[in-house]
């Protein structure tokens, strides 16, 4: 590129960052030219978020420097980064739905109202949203809302814009609009860092791609020299030798406990099929948003409006509510513990027996629960699950660590007498020791005759835990990997590129 002769827009020199017990970034060095679009890719935990947080002034690196123009800069808060010309567009849509698009763009910008508004109009024009400035943000589609967020960033006249997964929640047809906006930004000399899991978009759109793996830059290449296949390998961290064994659907001699056919949860999931046998742990892999959660939630009865059939042995199930799903014998442990599972004001014992208290009542038909009976029953199960400290059943659930909270939820699933266990992101936000523990408990569930379905966006978790893994891509199952074939690298690669080497051949 010709611009390389001029001074870089941004330069990062040997940036290193530690968290307790983790080296998040090691010796990161790169530079960005003005008006360049650079893709930043890497798997979950590779260090993308840490790097963007440092650039956006959310956190400070332990060592290393960031240069803008000629001099080094150091940010201690996001507003300083913004003043220095670095704007970040977060992944989550964060508009005020009831306010107009214009008010959303100008939100929090100081200066004379008339000037701000006219600048906002100009920015909106470059992004092609000038004719909807008066509309409420909540009435706009996802792609327009994304453009509004970009407009909000551009209003600060940044020289560098960090776009975190701008297309993750968008339908492919909407992606184009966002890209045209980015292209327009580039023409005006703004440098764009594009963070994405969608490799095709990165390759077709960025001039250069920086690949992070385990906190290091493993590649910094012109995108024209890269193929999707090779990029997938760089991210996954393994040279593939072309043997990509498609596993046969496992032990066909046993009758499946659960048979799912043609499952669809519009618009996220389509054509999902599954046979689940007693005694096995099956994983559902994929990128965040590839539809794994929806599949499990569907089995849990939380998507009443799904299509397709779910049969338990020979009986067709009607999963129209969580209650119906529980009755059918399906236990569900959701993802995002803080929002979806933990009710902070309840005790551990009450959490474990919340919808299944019959055993602990004064009398089966008198709905008064005896705290002592309930606590001792829960303590028995918890001690089997190896919760330390012991005898916590009377404490509030919110006082427990994340790992122990998760074990209490496992206890709830076990005490419900379910035969099928659907577990969504089982070790999200728990420490390493608890993670090992939870994996052991899940294996025990299966060993005791349960059929376990685990969804996770962490390939190594599934590789370690599961008998076989179904990989989903954009809402469809694309491959099933069994036993030895279900390696971390293969799961990662299939999740990223949505097909296998064999298919290509």
């Amino acid at each position: 590129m010709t611009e390389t002769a001029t001074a870089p827009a941004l330069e990062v020199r040997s940036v290193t960052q530690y968290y307790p017990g983790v080296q998040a970034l090691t010796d990161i060095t790169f530079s960005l030219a003005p008006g360049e679009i650079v893709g930043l890719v890497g798997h979950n935990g590779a260090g993308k978020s840490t790097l963007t947080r440092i650039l956006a002034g959310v956190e400070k690196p332990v060592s290393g420097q960031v240069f803008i123009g000629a001099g080094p800069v150091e940010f201690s808060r996001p507003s300083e980064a913004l003043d220095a010309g670095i704007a970040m567009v977060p992944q989550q849509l964060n508009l005020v739905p009831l306010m107009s698009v214009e008010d959303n763009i100008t939100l929090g910008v100081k200066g004379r109202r008339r000037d701000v508004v006219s600048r906002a109009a100009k920015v909106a024009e470059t992004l092609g949203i000038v004719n909807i400035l008066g509309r409420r943000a909540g009435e706009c589609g996802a792609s327009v809302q994304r453009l509004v967020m970009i407009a909000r960033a551009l209003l600060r006249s940044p020289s560098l814009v960090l776009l975190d997964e701008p297309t993750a929640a968008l339908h492919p047809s909407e992606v184009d609009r966002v890209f045209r906006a980015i292209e327009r930004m580039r023409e005006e000399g703004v440098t764009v860092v594009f963070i994405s899991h969608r490799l095709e978009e990165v390759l077709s759109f960025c001039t250069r791609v920086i690949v992070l793996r385990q906190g290091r830059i493993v590649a910094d290449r012109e995108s024209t020299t890269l193929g999707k296949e090779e990029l997938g390998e760089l991210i996954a961290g393994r040279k593939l030798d072309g043997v990509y064994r498609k596993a046969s659907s496992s032990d066909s001699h046993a009758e499946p406990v659960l048979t799912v056919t043609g499952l669809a949860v519009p618009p996220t999931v389509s054509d999902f099929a599954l046979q689940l046998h007693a005694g096995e742990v099956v994983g559902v892999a994929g990128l965040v948003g590839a539809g794994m959660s929806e599949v499990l939630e569907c089995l849990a009865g939380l998507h009443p409006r799904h299509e397709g059939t779910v049969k338990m042995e020979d009986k067709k199930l009607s999963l129209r509510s969580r209650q119906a799903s529980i009755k059918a014998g399906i236990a569900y442990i959701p993802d995002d513990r803080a929002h979806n599972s933990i009710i902070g004001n309840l005790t551990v014992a009450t959490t474990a027996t919340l919808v299944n208290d019959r055993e602990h009542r004064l009398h089966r038909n008198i709905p008064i629960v005896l705290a002592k009976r309930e606590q001792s029953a829960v303590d028995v199960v918890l001690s089997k699950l190896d919760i330390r400290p012991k005898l916590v059943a009377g404490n509030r659930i919110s006082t427990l660590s994340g790992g122990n909270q998760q074990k209490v939820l496992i206890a709830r699933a076990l005490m419900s007498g379910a035969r099928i266990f659907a577990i969504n992101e089982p070790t999200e936000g728990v420490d390493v020791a608890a993670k090992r523990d939870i994996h052991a408990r899940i294996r025990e569930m299966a060993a005791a005759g349960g059929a376990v379905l685990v969804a996770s966006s962490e390939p190594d978790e599934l590789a370690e835990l599961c008998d076989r893994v179904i990989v989903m891509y954009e809402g469809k199952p694309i491959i099933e990997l069994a036993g030895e074939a279900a390696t971390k690298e293969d799961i990662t690669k299939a999740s990223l590129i949505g097909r296998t080497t064999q298919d290509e051949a």
Partner: protein
Amino acid sequence: MSTEMTDARIPASAQANQGDAPKKSNTSSAAAGLERRERRRRLLGQIGVPVVLVLLVIVFSVIAPNFLTLANFKTIASDAALPAIVAIGLTLCLAAGEFDLSLNGVIGLATVATAQLLSPMNLITIEAILIVAVAGLLIGALNGVLVGYFGLPALIVTIAVGAILNGGQYVVTNSQQIYGGFPDDLVAFCRGSMGPVPNLAIIAVAVAALAWLTLERSTLGRHVRAVGGNPVAARIAGINTARVKLWVFMISAMLATLAGFLFAGKQTTAYPLSGLDVLLPSFAACFIGAAMFKVGEFNVPGTLVGVAIATITSNGLILMSVPAYTSFFFQGAILLAAILFARVVSTKKSLT
């Protein structure tokens, strides 16, 4: 929540300040201080409210004539009984995370309907009880269905239903005032007492005991607290959250109806909008209660203490011959003080 945050922060800052010993100890002592403050806040909640109650009694004993007499305490118990019954119903509603602002309307309708049925229409007591109870149940069910099953905001639904019920009182009574003609035994019961304890207070205590058992020990109460604590998690856990809301609105309306019925028997007169006005004091009592016993959670014993504080305050002021309209100021002020206090002692960000 804040203790968790502190725990998480210590190792992080210790890591960043490696070899920087004084800073490190600073952080941990700051964390310990935070925890101390936290404990002190909880303690303030646990003992603060009872202390206020005791102080009120002491102050009024000194400055209000005839406050510290058996007769006056009977009056207080009798005056507190009906507001307590209403506030207990509201406690269950709030525990499930919902509001019931239709209470005044429900009480008023129950009062005038009771009077109309017993006096001009000359029904016997048990018939009146049945009809009024069914009406109360239906009103509660209406609130519950609209909020639980249709997902409408309780705030608006219950204000609207309350307004309709206020209008209904004119229809029921034909805009007439009703006085006298109540069955003697009903009046005798509502005004009488067993030994030194007013009958109404006995009913209130019985209601409180049942409500406590329901909220703290029963399956429904566990579900109520779960829905109030985290409705999303409660639904995913398999609780029928709509049904739980239906239940709490029915209980709330039933208890308001009971209070309205007993109020009619006690007053022996009724006319439109003549019911008990206990909406604000009930909310105040519940929020005072949420600041004690189980800090941050609405609970029945706490609500009773809250009702006692409100009733004793108004009783003392009346004894001191303070003009009646000042009760408005005190009602509002007590409610504000209660939610402010609950906020200060609660570790949670918000109660509702």
